[in-house]
């Protein structure tokens, strides 16, 4: 379950480039590792995020993990629905569970394609 059209960060976020907008979420593998999510903390519209920095966090029943920005840019939209329905990230990580839309400048570097990401989680699983 690794869509070929997306790009991936080593920290298990996915990126979908649509012109100068990047849509960001976490992968199927990431949500499986976390288990049932109870809360998603996201930045505010208008905030600027930097590639590699924390931009928020996700909480499951017994743990919390940071989210790392796979690209740099200004947050133009957040998925408000996750505030009341964090389980959407578990149910549909690549679609309804999207988290942010960020305005980017140019093509982001240092991201993995689907094959490279598949290899990464293969190596992490062993």
């Amino acid at each position, binding site marked *: 379950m690794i869509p070929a059209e997306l790009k991936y960060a080593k920290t298990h976020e996915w990126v979908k480039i649509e012109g100068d907008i990047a849509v960001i979420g976490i992968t199927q593998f990431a949500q499986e590792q976390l288990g049932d999510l109870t*809360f998603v*903390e996201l930045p505010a519209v208008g905030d600027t995020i930097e590639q590699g920095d924390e931009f928020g966090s996700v*909480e499951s029943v*017994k*743990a*919390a993990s*940071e989210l790392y920005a796979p690209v740099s840019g200004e947050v133009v939209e957040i998925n408000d629905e996750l505030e009341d329905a964090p389980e959407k990230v578990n149910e549909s990580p690549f679609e309804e569970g999207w988290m942010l839309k960020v305005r980017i400048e140019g093509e982001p570097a240092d991201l993995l394609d689907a094959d490279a990401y598949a290899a990464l989680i293969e190596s992490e699983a062993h």
Partner: protein
Amino acid sequence: MPFVPHTPEEVREMLAVIGVDSVEDLFAEITNSMRPQSFDIPEGLSEMEVLAKLEGMAAKNATDSASFLGAGFYDHYIPAAVDALTMRGEFYTAYTPYQPEASQGTLQAIFEYQTAVCRLMDMDCANASVYDGGTALYEAVMMAVRKTKRRKVVLSEALNPIYRVMLDSYITNLNLELVCVPHKNGRTDIEGLKAAIDDKTAAVLVQNPNFFGSVNDFTDLFNAAREQKAVSIISSYPVLQTLLKTPGQMGADVAVAEGQSLGLPLSFGGPYLGIMTCTKKMVRQMPGRIVGRTQDTEGRTGYVLTLQAREQHIRRQKATSNICSNQSLCALRALVHMCALGEMGMRRAARLSIERAHLCAEKLTAIPGVEMLTDGPFGNEFAVTLPVNAYEVIARLSDRGFIPGFPLGRYYEGLENGLLLACTEKTSEEHIGILAEMMKGALK
């Protein structure tokens, strides 16, 4: 469940596994020069000697004084049931209830306490308590700072000065800006507070009744704060919440209180109880422990510590607070106290306290030269201006076993003649009469 960490046998087993002979050997790494040379503890005494020594010390206390001291801490009547029930040995453990399978009793008691204080304040959520009212106020400020990511805090000078001193020292190194809006003759300057709130403001802090005893409705102020996306924090006196407009009704985001007046003796200033309640929206910023009620796989009710991702054992660097403790026994006393009195009893205690204070104000202001400082509605506490320095009167009357109140000059410049007096249901009309007579004599 015995909460004894290790028996001598277990200690021996552990040492054997590590491969050392004694605890002394275990710490052999620590050189003599780095060890305490002496703890300076005197020789032991027999039980009888200890008792005599302590009784001698206790006898020095002025316990039979009639006191009109309040200033945030009040001598209310505590039903006998509070001591009787809370002295049960089961409650005396320092064990943290993180294992629900071993702590259902403790957890349920905390859950019931949380429920009671939420109802009292009309708020959605409460934590298991923090050390005291001042700490609760500081933690509330930090909730707002985290929530808004802003650094300016607007507060009223009519907020208890003891708490303002605490806040100052707590935030010394935190790069926050405290903007203190002066009181207006003992009144909370609501318009001044409104004017000070801007889009950089994390929180606005007020107190009800304020330090001078004035009762306010802060609904408008909290609406103004909301427009600027600032967090509204109120410090309130729990006993009076049964009669006054509650923090929830005013639209506060966080409501805190010193819980001492709910079943805790004054006891030289502690241990007390920091009550913290908030709206559901703010709950993820709440520090410390929160108990929730749930069901196990068989559908049986169970109590657990919940929302633990806020706490430092999950993510130390991201924890909402360094506080990982609560005042369980004090919270339990508050709960038993509220249950023993019930809604009617709590209202009655509040009403009696207020009536006594109004009678006291009437008697004192009948004395030539004594003027009312608190203006507008007040609860069980009020301030008067004397024709002389308040310290003088306090010194004269306390020599005769009467503590007439708190000298406002201690914290408020220009109010050296101001005296703050509090009454509770324990203040008799006779005491009020004697106080008025003594005051008359002292001012002649």
